[in-house]
């Protein structure tokens, strides 16, 4: 099952998740995956907002910003959101679990 982030805010339950469609939408709106590692705290608000698209598309930006403001432990949050954001692509390119027959390689640089 895909990774999800769940919380309650003002008596409403929220489920944050990324689908391939929402990741594509975020990229179309200028989001760059590399920025998560290079400027994590800068992109955190956009990453957080993007996670609403899958299940809470019509929640207003003001509300999302308000929720973000009240989120605790933002350093852990960026890590979790980054994992979730990468899941749609890692699920596609994941290597088989069995190691038999697989080739290990090392680079010279």
């Amino acid at each position, binding site marked *: *099952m*895909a990774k999800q982030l769940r919380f309650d805010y003002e008596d409403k339950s929220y489920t944050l998740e*990324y*689908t*391939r*469609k929402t*990741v*594509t939408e975020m*990229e*179309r709106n200028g989001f*760059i*995956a*590399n920025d998560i590692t*290079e400027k994590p705290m800068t992109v955190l608000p956009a990453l957080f907002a993007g996670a609403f698209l899958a299940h809470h598309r019509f929640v207003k930006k003001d509300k999302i910003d308000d929720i973000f403001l009240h989120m605790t432990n933002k350093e852990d949050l960026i890590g979790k959101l980054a994992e979730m954001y990468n*899941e*749609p*692509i890692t*699920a*596609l*390119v*994941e290597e088989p679990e069995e190691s038999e027959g697989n080739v290990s390689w090392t680079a010279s640089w």
Partner: protein
Amino acid sequence: MVSGSSSEVEGDETQNGSHPLFTYTEVFNKHFPFYLSIGMTYEDFWERDCCLVKAYREAYEMSKARRNEEMWLQGLYIYDAIIRVSPILHAFAKGGTKPTPYMEKPYDITEKAVEKTKRDKEVEQFKKNKRMVESFAVQHNIKMKGGNKDA
């Protein structure tokens, strides 16, 4: 841009910040036709649980293995049929030669079928033994009656 720089190849514009070699969207679009070909719907791929692809990949491997087994079994039936017909296939077969009849029932390939065949054989053997014993008993009784009469 400095001539000879590999910024286009590496996708790295060092002055403006680095950009990835590819976008996630490009990777998704590259894999999408494969998943369509193995039966995944548009909604499943783009809008549903992103880990569904793992299950679809595993299911695809299973169906390939199953199909391979079915083809092998079909080959076995064809081979069996050719062997059964082979007595009449060569030019100098004697007159009156007949092919071995085709199998009356398919091979037992499931555990259930193997168990059933084994049980049927046991029941058949039991009935045969019972008939032998009954026949022996009848003959023995006849002899005994014949012996008493003489006495």
